[in-house]
């Protein structure tokens, strides 16, 4: 674990923080988005906001797969789990995600549904092998990092002749969501916000490389720094973004040279491409429908597709209209601006996507950062 500690050195972080403070132009405001919930978590967990100057602001993006899963998909999973033939295998963090009318997998389990918490797709395959009498469905969710294991599981199930295994596919794509955020001002659906650069998730780029981001530089004059997840990586990447702004550059840069290349992992890409294809459109909780932003199983692997095997019908459900996730996710508002924040909406009773997992913007602020609200409120009063 030496490896991890090297990237958590408090002194080094403070040194980078001092450089950021020295190089930040006091006449400018900097707004960067960390796309990924993992980065949001690192920023909140280590209190990195306190290390940044007041004019460098981080906007928490939508890159938390649990958070952006629409309520309707949760409802569908609950329906599926109620099927007496089905054993639903799921990651623990999906258990509490509320569907419509307060339903959740954890409650469905308490009411008798056969739901198992697993740590990997392989656990789900193993359950399917041990229980040939059960239809085992893996609740697949995640960005590009978790897609190859799902593809692998499907191929493994086929190779082993498993007829009782399928996946409920909710895999989504990072670049499509970044595009949706950048196009938000144009489409007029959401209020505009000036994001001057993105932190891109390194584990996603370990698979897809950095190339898919080149278009954001060309089309939107944006800046992207692909960043590791250790707090030091994040600080260093923020410094790289800030320098691009100061120098008037727009580029895709790679902070995480430890494991990311421009091309990414070709073998994993081929595997995913063999098993999955693009959906025309997919609903993101908090952001709405985004074209070509998610995957489904190809026709060739249709028998492993739970949606087709169980002829699942799409369920449409909407969030509390007072929920501000859509505006928070594009940086136009902050969690404490939502009138449901901390009153009816808490991590125990989330009303919107950003409160669902600790990686969501509202939950991270509630769990780690809400002590700052009073300081912010009194600073606001003093200023006015």
């Amino acid at each position, binding site marked *: *674990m030496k490896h*991890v500690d090297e990237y*958590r050195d*408090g002194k080094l*972080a*403070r040194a980078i*923080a001092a450089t950021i403070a020295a190089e930040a132009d006091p006449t400018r405001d900097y707004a960067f988005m960390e796309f990924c919930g993992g980065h949001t978590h690192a920023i*909140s*967990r*280590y*209190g*990195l*906001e*306190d*290390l940044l100057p007041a004019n460098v602001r981080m906007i928490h993006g939508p890159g938390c797969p649990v958070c952006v899963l629409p309520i309707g998909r949760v409802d569908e999973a609950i329906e599926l789990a109620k099927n007496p033939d089905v054993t639903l295998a799921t990651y*623990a963090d999906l*258990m*509490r995600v509320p569907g419509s009318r*307060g339903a959740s997998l*954890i*409650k469905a*389990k*308490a*009411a008798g549904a056969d739901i198992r*918490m697993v*740590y990997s797709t392989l*656990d789900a395959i193993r359950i399917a092998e041990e229980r040939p009498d059960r239809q085992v469905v893996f609740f697949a969710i995640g960005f590009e990092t978790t897609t190859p294991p799902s593809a692998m599981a499907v191929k493994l199930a086929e190779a082993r002749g498993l007829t009782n295994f399928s996946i409920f596919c909710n895999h989504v794509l990072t670049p499509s969501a970044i595009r949706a955020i950048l196009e938000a001002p144009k489409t007029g659906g959401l209020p505009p916000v000036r994001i001057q650069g993105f932190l891109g998730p390194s584990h996603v780029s370990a698979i897809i490389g950095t190339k898919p981001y080149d278009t954001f530089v060309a089309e939107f004059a944006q800046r992207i720094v692909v960043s590791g997840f250790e*707090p030091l990586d994040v600080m260093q990447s923020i410094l790289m973004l800030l320098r691009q702004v100061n120098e008037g550059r727009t580029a895709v840069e790679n902070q995480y040279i430890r494991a990311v290349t421009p091309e990414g992992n070709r073998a994993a890409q081929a595997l995913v491409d063999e098993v999955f294809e693009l959906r025309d459109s997919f609903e993101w909780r908090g952001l709405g429908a985004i074209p070509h932003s998610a995957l489904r199983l190809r026709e060739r692997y249709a028998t492993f597709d739970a949606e087709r095997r169980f002829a699942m019908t799409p369920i449409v459900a909407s969030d509390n209209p007072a929920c501000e996730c859509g505006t928070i996710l594009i940086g136009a508002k902050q969690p404490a601006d939502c009138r449901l924040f*901390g*009153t*009816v909406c*808490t*991590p*125990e*009773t989330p009303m919107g996507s950003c409160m669902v997992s*600790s990686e969501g913007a509202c939950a991270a602020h*509630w*769990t*780690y*950062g*809400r*002590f*700052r*609200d*009073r300081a912010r*409120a*009194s600073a606001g009063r003093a200023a006015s």
Partner: protein
Amino acid sequence: MSETREPRLRRRRMDVKSGRVDLSHGAGGRASAQLIDEIFRDAFSNAWLDQGNDQAAFDVPLVPGGRMVMATDAHVITPLFFPGGDIGSLAVHGTINDVAVGGAVPLHLAVSFIVEEGFPLADLKRIADSMGRASREAGVPIVTGDTKVVERGKADGVFITTTGIGVLAPGVELSGDRARPGDVVLLSGSIGDHGVAIMASRENLGFETAIVSDSAALHRLTAAMVAAGGTGLKLMRDPTRGGLAATLNEIATQSRVGIRIAEEALPIKAQVVAACELLGLDPLNVANEGKLVAVVEAGAAEAVLAAMRADPLGREAVAIGEVIEDDRSFVQMTTSFGGGRIVDWLTGEQLPRIC
């Protein structure tokens, strides 16, 4: 000030008519607290229970000045045997500790077993022997008990409930509502060992660690602390389910104060950090079974800390932070990076049964 006060949780009450108990109600987080509040506290309410401590202290009628402490704890852990202990030793230690952190000298234990039909006698004997050994080592005998057997499938192997009583020396008044700004928060040793040992011993996690549970009886340590701290010792708690984070939040809420701790002061074993990393857990939320937290007046901190370090179970004791004024009852931590964050209760259930 009032307009910036954190809004009180307008929490919806539980749906008693059609709701069901789910795993989050047993995880030691807010859902557990709500279950206890709305089902049990409503039904039992009395002066002793309502204090909300892990044990109750009461006067003994007919004995002038006599005071006793009582506590009970159910154990449903899987697996039954784990590195550093088993459900039996855990059931003995857990209840002794609940009595001991109330400041009392534990005297006797009662035990009740719920055993599933088909459970191997060899395992039952192994558990009973382990309980006997643990209680003899602690000098706290098991003086009465009960056994029920239920049909296969109606329990999972064996569930054990232990109840303990102890006596309080005159003048010892410990309670979770006694922390005041300026008090020092002490911790007896490394956190997260028990929870990680349990998770590692579940085969499906597929990783090995050298970590063993810290399960131990803390009553000798607490006796030394009571002696050294005198009236400067405000309260003690053992951070079991929900980990250090839950315990500190309970104290802050009960005492209506804030607590600020320093991440750099927290003793956490490297293997525990690594395992938590892998599992996506925060060591602050992971259970302990042989550790305690104490809140002491600043003037008594040195003496209590020295007494702790003189006991084998408190050798690594450290001061981890202080009690501060905060009407929102936040527990805050200065991270190793110099930033600040809240240390919150665990939300919902993270993993299956650990105690």
